[in-house]
C-alpha cells in the first residue's frame, strides 16, 4: 500500500504531527518521503541543539563544582595555617624557660628552687635566733661576773683608802718619834705609795669593768638586731612563690584549651578535606556526563546530516527508492549501534564513579 505523508511543522509549545494519505502513484511518494526525511532531520538537529544547551549547563555546573573545590582548598589552607600558629603558641607556653646558673630551668623548677631557698633561709634564721639567746645568757653571765667584780673593786678601794689612812697615821707617829722614827717613816711612805698604786689599779679596773658592761650592752643591741626579723617579708615571699605556682597552673590550663582548639580545627580540616573529595567526585561525574552528552550530540548531528542527505537524494529522484531505503536502514542501524555503545560505555563509567 502506498500513501502520502504530510509534515506539520511544530510551533512553540506543540509537538510535530504526521498525517498519512493514500495515493495511487509511486512517483508521488518521493516528494512526500523527502519531506518526511527532511522533517526527521530537523527534529534530530533540534535534539542535537538541545543537547548542546544541556552541555553548556553541565559545563556551568562543573565550573561551580571546581570553584567549590577551590574554595574548600583555600579554607583548608587557612585552617592549616591557623593550626600551625596555635601549635607554635602552645609550644611557647609549654617550653617557657628561665636562665639559670647551670643552663636553663623550667618555671616549676625555678619555683621549687625559690621555696627551697626560703626554707633554708628560715632554718638559718631559727638557728640564729636560738643561738642569739644562748649568747644573751652567756652575756648575762658575764654581766653578773662584772657586777661581782665591781663589788670586789669597791672593797679593794676601801682597803686602799684605809691603807692610805694607816700610812698617813704611821707617818705622823714617825714624825713624833723624830730621829727614832726615821726608818718607820720610810716604811710608812712606801706603804702610802702602795696604797696609792692599789687605789689607781682599782680605779682602772672599775673603769675597765664599766667599759666591759658598755660593750655587753652594745653587743646585746647587735644581737637583738640580728635576731629580730619581721616575718612578714618571708610570708610575702612565700605567697609570691605560691602565686607563681598558680600562674604555672593557669598556663597549663591555657595549654589544654589550645590543644582542644587545635583538635576542633583538626576536625574542621578533616571535614573540609572530605568535602573536597566529594567535590572531586562530583566533578568527575559531571565530566563523564558531559562526555556522554557530547557523544550523543555528535551521533545525533551525524544521523541528522545523513537523514538530510537521504532526503535530498529522495527529492532529486536520481537514485532508486529501494537503494535509498537500504541506505536509510543502514544509517539507522549505525546510529542505533552508536547509541547502544555510548550508553553501554556510559554505564560502565558510571559504575566506575560509584566505585570511586
Amino acid at each position, binding site marked *: 500500500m502506498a500513501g502520502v505523508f504530510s509534515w506539520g511543522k511544530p510551533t512553540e509549545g506543540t509537538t510535530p504531527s504526521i498525517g498519512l494519505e493514500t495515493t495511487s502513484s509511486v512517483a508521488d511518494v518521493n516528494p512526500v518521503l523527502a519531506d518526511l526525511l527532511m522533517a526527521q532531520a530537523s527534529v534530530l538537529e533540534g535534539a542535537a541543539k538541545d543537547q548542546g544547551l544541556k552541555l553548556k549547563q553541565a559545563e556551568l555546573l562543573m565550573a561551580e563544582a571546581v570553584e567549590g573545590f577551590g574554595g574548600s582548598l583555600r579554607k583548608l589552607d587557612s585552617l592549616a595555617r591557623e593550626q600551625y600558629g596555635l601549635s607554635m603558641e602552645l609550644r611557647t607556653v609549654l617550653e617557657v624557660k628561665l636562665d639559670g646558673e647551670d643552663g636553663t630551668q623550667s618555671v616549676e623548677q625555678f619555683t621549687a628552687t625559690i621555696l627551697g631557698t626560703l626554707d633554708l633561709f628560715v632554718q638559718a634564721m631559727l638557728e*640564729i635566733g636560738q643561738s642569739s*639567746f*644562748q649568747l644573751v645568757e652567756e652575756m648575762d653571765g658575764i654581766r653578773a661576773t662584772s657586777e661581782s667584780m665591781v663589788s670586789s673593786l669597791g672593797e679593794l678601794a676601801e682597803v686602799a683608802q684605809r691603807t692610805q689612812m694607816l700610812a698617813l697615821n704611821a707617818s705622823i707617829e714617825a714624825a713624833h718619834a723624830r730621829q727614832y722614827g726615821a726608818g718607820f717613816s720610810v716604811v710608812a711612805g712606801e706603804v702610802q705609795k702602795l696604797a696609792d698604786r692599789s687605789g689607781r689599779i682599782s680605779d682602772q679596773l672599775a673603769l675597765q669593768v664599766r667599759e666591759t658592761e658598755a660593750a655587753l650592752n652594745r653587743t646585746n643591741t647587735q644581737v637583738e638586731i640580728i635576731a629580730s626579723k619581721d616575718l612578714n617579708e618571708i610570708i610575702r615571699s612565700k605567697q609570691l612563690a605560691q602565686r607563681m605556682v598558680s600562674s604555672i597552673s593557669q598556663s597549663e590550663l591555657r595549654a589544654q584549651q589550645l590543644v582542644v582548639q587545635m583538635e576542633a580545627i583538626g576536625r574542621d580540616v578533616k571535614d573540609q578535606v572530605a568535602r573536597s573529595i566529594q567535590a572531586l567526585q562530583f566533578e568527575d561525574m559531571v565530566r563523564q556526563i558531559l562526555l556522554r552528552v557530547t557523544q550523543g550530540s555528535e551521533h545525533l548531528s551525524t544521523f541528522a546530516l545523513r537523514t538530510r542527505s537521504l532526503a535530498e537524494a529522495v527529492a532529486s529522484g536520481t537514485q532508486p527508492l529501494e537503494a535509498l531505503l537500504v541506505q536509510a536502514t543502514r544509517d539507522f542501524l549505525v546510529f542505533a549501534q552508536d547509541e547502544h555503545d555510548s550508553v553501554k560505555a556510559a554505564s560502565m563509567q558510571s559504575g566506575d564513579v560509584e566505585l570511586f
Partner: protein
Amino acid sequence: MGFRMQVDHQCATVFLEGRLAFGSYPDFRAATMSALDLPEVQVIHLDMSSLDYMDSSALGMILHFKQKADLAKKTLAIIRPSPQVATVLKVVNFDRLISILP
C-alpha cells in the same frame, strides 16, 4: 609586764599575750623557767591564743627554751595559736620542731 602561769597537776601553762619579741625575753624566761623548775611539772604549754605578734627572735626564744625543756626531759607544746601567729608558725614550718595543738 610578766606572763601569767597556771599549773594543773603535771601540766604548766604559760599565757603569752600581746607581742613576743627580743625585749620580751626577761619576762618569757622568768615565766618559763619558773614552770621548768617545778619538779611535779612534766608538760609545759605555751598558750598563744592572746598573742598578736611574734618576730623571728620570738621563735629563737621558744627554740632556746625547748632545748632546756629537752635537757630537763619535759615536754613543750604550743597551744591555741591566734590566726596571725598560726600563719607565722605555718610559714616557717614550726610544727616540724614543736608540737602545735589547736
